[in-house]
């Protein structure tokens, strides 16, 4: 039954492809698919089912909905539902394919989160990646987008090697890759598994130094970004660390590494998001930063805080991306200097504002609470970590405010020529309502519920933390307002070159190209030309050595096996060996039969090839007759002599093939 998590969206996606000729069926069909998937997810969260699939050869794949998986099986389809409705209402080219792939994407993500072992996780992980490639390359006729999709997939797949290694080591060393088994690993296998998981998660969750792939992923349609950045794909890295870090005491460095990685990405991503001139790119950089915060929570030992922020972030980030899509649809651009759609699109502006407030961490929205929980956990682990979280929080408040004002602030056109469709408004309303409703996290007793649902524990906040957070948010608001007053909100008062350099992920893509991609391509080209030279050398060698050898051999064996050197068909050799048994008459008969067959072959292949082969076959046929006569003389009864003949015959075949050309 647990397999329904995968099968329902796959079946729905196939059905959508089947009805692609009827565009009217696609919106209700895709919404129904996601609603059914959501129902299965809610059931799975309650029933905590498990299932196995025998792979053979002693391996078994398994599903086991427990821990944070119980939250994710609901979150993924719940976020996907408004996103597919938005997609069905806004995309026209290849809509059925897009919706079917989105459904498959959700199914693969559910397989990933419901996995009970690393191999099943790996299967879901790679399928999510492949779906993301196809989704990013949705507009495949474009000359650039398919290349960007490939770039995105290759970046994450480089990290995937870590997960392949982790799963392979677990299976190879422990015989199984169940999550529980990981806890028993010690020594180098534990280190490889831990390192592999961190690498894979860093790539998937767009942490340093892999973060720029999210910019390439922008080539996909808006709903793809909305889903990819919120509850699927990028969430996978944080999810898997949330599940596995507590299980690997054998690698004590893992938690600290995750926390440091997350903190660094949270701060760097905050800077990159703050200086963007493109709305979607700003949101993409903020995704890296927010997942950085989630990793801080995991590393600091609070998987519950990580789970809570995963949920609140998924909700408001999907909302913000759909809002960006509405802006793009209305204004035809994502350039932050020329949007200000507040008066034209008041409803979209209001929902975007709710999302931006959540991103900024303004109470009483739930995202503010989950961020406070992360700060509490960080403070518990190390003051430096807490300081990084405060800085990241300040930056997120700055860019959230900047984006809200520039994208949907006042001062733009009075009306949009293309107002959003009803399904779009419904999607925005649903996600906006969910963002606001997450305020329940501030209620007393909510922490207990979070701990129960997400697994793990929340830490009590130190007395200074909440005031500090509020102060940074207030400070950020002052900064944004100050910049806006001075008219420097788009440029931040930075020189264009500096802003562009910071915005391009601090030069990381260029560094990756110079340090990794270009050298690999250069090595590959060098090897290829080296290989071509080896081919030629090999041919010369293969052409000369056997010819020389066969000449030497035929000189050496002139008297006894001269005839056989010409006799090169396999059948003749067999006959020569077999004739040891046969009497004189038998030999005659065999030889005649063989030469007869060879003659037939010769006749046939004369038609087959008039130029070179023909002559060779005729020679073979003539040689066969001679071989028959001489082979009778060769029955010395000494086995080793026959081996020499067989070997010599082979060498001779080489010679004939070489000379007869």
């Amino acid at each position, binding site marked *: 039954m647990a397999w329904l998590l995968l099968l329902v969206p796959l079946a729905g996606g196939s059905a959508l492809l089947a009805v692609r000729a009827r565009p009217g069926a696609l919106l209700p069909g895709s919404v129904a698919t996601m609603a059914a998937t959501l129902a299965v997810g809610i059931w799975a969260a309650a029933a905590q089912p498990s299932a196995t699939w025998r792979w053979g050869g002693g391996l078994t794949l398994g599903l086991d909905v427990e821990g944070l998986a119980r939250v994710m099986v609901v979150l993924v389809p719940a976020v996907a539902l408004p996103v597919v409705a938005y997609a069905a209402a806004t995309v026209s080219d290849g809509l059925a394919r897009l919706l079917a792939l989105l459904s498959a994407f959700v199914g693969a993500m559910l397989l990933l989160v419901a996995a009970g072992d690393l191999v099943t996780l790996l299967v879901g992980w790679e399928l999510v990646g492949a779906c993301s490639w196809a989704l990013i390359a949705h507009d495949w006729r474009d000359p650039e987008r398919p290349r960007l999709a490939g770039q995105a997939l290759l970046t994450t797949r480089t990290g995937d090697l870590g997960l*392949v290694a982790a799963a392979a080591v677990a299976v190879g060393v422990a015989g199984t890759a169940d999550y529980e088994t990981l806890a028993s690993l010690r020594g180098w296998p534990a280190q*490889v598994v831990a390192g592999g998981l961190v690498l894979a998660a860093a790539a998937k969750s767009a942490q340093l130094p892999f973060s720029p792939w999210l910019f390439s992923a922008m080539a996909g349609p808006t709903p793809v970004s909305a889903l990819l950045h919120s509850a699927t794909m990028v969430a996978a890295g944080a999810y898997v660390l949330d599940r596995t870090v507590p299980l690997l005491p054998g690698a004590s460095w893992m938690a600290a590494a995750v926390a440091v990685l997350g903190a660094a990405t949270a701060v760097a991503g905050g800077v990159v998001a703050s200086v963007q001139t493109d709305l979607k790119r700003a949101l993409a950089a903020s995704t890296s930063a927010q997942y950085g915060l989630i990793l801080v929570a995991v590393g600091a030992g609070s998987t519950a805080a990580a789970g809570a922020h995963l949920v609140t972030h998924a909700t408001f980030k999907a909302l913000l991306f759909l809002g960006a899509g509405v802006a793009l649809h209305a204004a035809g651009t994502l350039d932050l200097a020329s949007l200000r759609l507040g008066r034209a699109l008041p409803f979209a502006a209001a929902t975007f504002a709710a999302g931006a407030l959540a991103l900024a961490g303004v109470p009483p929205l739930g995202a503010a609470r989950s961020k406070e929980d992360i700060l509490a956990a960080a403070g518990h682990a190390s003051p430096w970590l807490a300081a990084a979280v405060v800085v990241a929080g300040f930056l997120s408040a700055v860019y959230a405010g900047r984006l809200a004002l520039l994208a949907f602030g006042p001062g733009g056109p009075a009306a949009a020529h293309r107002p959003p469709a009803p399904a779009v408004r419904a999607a925005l309303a649903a996600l906006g309502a969910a963002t606001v409703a997450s305020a329940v996290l501030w209620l007393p007793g909510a922490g207990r519920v979070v701990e129960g649902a997400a697994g793990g524990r929340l830490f009590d906040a130190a007395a200074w933390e909440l005031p500090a957070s509020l102060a940074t948010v207030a400070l950020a608001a002052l900064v944004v307002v100050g910049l806006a007053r001075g008219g420097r909100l788009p440029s931040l008062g930075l020189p264009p070159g500096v802003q562009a350099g910071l915005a391009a992920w601090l030069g990381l893509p260029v560094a990756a190209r110079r340090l990794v991609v270009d050298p690999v391509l250069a090595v590959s080209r060098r090897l290829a030309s080296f290989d071509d030279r080896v081919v030629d050398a090999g041919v010369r060698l*293969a052409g000369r050595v056997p010819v020389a050898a066969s000449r030497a051999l035929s000189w050496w064996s002139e008297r006894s096996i001269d005839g056989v050197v010409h006799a090169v068909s396999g059948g003749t050799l067999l006959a020569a060996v077999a004739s040891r048994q046969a009497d004189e008459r038998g030999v005659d008969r065999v030889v005649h039969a063989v030469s007869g067959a060879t003659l037939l072959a010769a006749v046939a292949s004369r038609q087959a090839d008039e130029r070179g082969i023909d002559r060779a076959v005729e020679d073979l046929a003539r040689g066969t007759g001679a071989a028959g006569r001489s082979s009778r003389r060769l029955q010395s009864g000494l086995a080793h002599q026959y081996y020499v003949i067989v070997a010599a015959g082979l060498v001779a075949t080489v010679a004939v093939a070489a000379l007869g050309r």
Partner: protein
Amino acid sequence: MLSTAIFVPLLGALALLLAPRLDERSARRLALAVAAVPLALMVVAWLAFDGDGGGGFELVESVRWIPTLGVGYKVGVDGVSLPLAAMTALLFVAAMAYPAEVQGRPRQYYAAFLLLESASLGVFLALDLFLFYVFFDVSLVGMYFLIAVWGHGDSQRSALKFFLYTLAGSLAMLLAILGLYLASEPRTFDMAALIDQQPLRGGGLRAGLVFLAFTVGLGVKTPIVPFHTWLPPAHVDAPAPASAILAGVLLKMGTYGFIRIVLSMMPDTFARYALPLAVVAVVSIVYGALVALAQTNLKRLVAYTSVNHMGYVILGVAAAAAASSSDPDAARLAINGATLEMVAHGLITGALFLLAGSVWSRAGTYELDRFGGLAGRAPAMTGAVMVTAFASLGLPGLAGFVAEFQVFAGAFAIYPVLAGIGLLGIVVTAALFLRMLQQVFLGPLPERWAAWPDLSRREVAALAPLVVLVVAIGVAPAWVLDVIDAATRPLVGR
């Protein structure tokens, strides 16, 4: 039954050659009818195979042949050879059904295929080393004619290169076989007897030399770096169906020989020299992938990925050989993965080469940068290439992943550093296949391909079984893995 499977294609080949006059269509129909016989027999053999024979051979047929030399005609199957033979029978039907330029000689074309099928099945089903060797060499002849006569480009030269290289390889293998034979007591070529005897047990110089000769001989056929250089030109100039057989079936003869002969008959010597072979395998994996990445020719690209994939197989076999007594569980993973990789690679790369033939027959070129945007004109072709390309780069849910993952799982437990280096091959193959898909099928459609036809019904019919099996093995590998496991468990558990 197995003998029928081997010799019916041979009789079919003779019948085609003797037939006075047949047009292409009738010749193809006759050939397909003949090739259907071994395929059906393999299905029957699969159903009859019980796999509980403790790793022994089943469905054995034997005839006295040259008893004084210990040579017998003996055929049979176990869990390693059955999947390979079945894949061979299927791939031959698909290859012969595929449209081809028979250049006015349809009878000879299909006769060459049937001769090759007979030899190929013989290699996998033979239970006598001498018989194995004979079939091994006859397969060269069939392939030589297919490339030389029906190839394109500089096909004579490529065919000759192929012939010389691999014949030199089989000469080395012959010497190794004789070395093994001369060490047996009583002297025999019978595989089961040699497996029982373990003739060169205890090692020594002689065992080392025999191992070296086997490695060179089988390594040329596989091919492993640096003996691979015959492969790309042979593939590029061969007609597509012959390429599919060359990659799908003939390469497996080398890796099959490593398992059937070297690993089974001289495991202690293999264990001693497994590490250098594993190093060579990892070099093949990384080198093959990197060289493939630089290719601009579709067929050369796929050809070099074969070097990469055969590297996985050899890595699995070498790891299994190293650990068959110290860590039988990991060895079993590695050898199961290697065997399944042979079958998976046969199906995947067979399909990829057939599809390359479809590209050639429409465009007359393999240069990647001349294409683009074909997805809009040819959705079926695009879908087929995508499935096989993703299978080849190891996407889960498709056959390649199942095999490669098990190879790596076993190899990591035995040679962790080598396995880690070998992983790099995965990301490079992903890069090259993604680039290929993007260059050929995505982006804007060049003007000159505006009338590009999609796959014909015949092409679809030939490819469908291969693609379906790639998915079926990827999703539910148990039915194949259990058969393989029946043979490999006793092999590594000694």
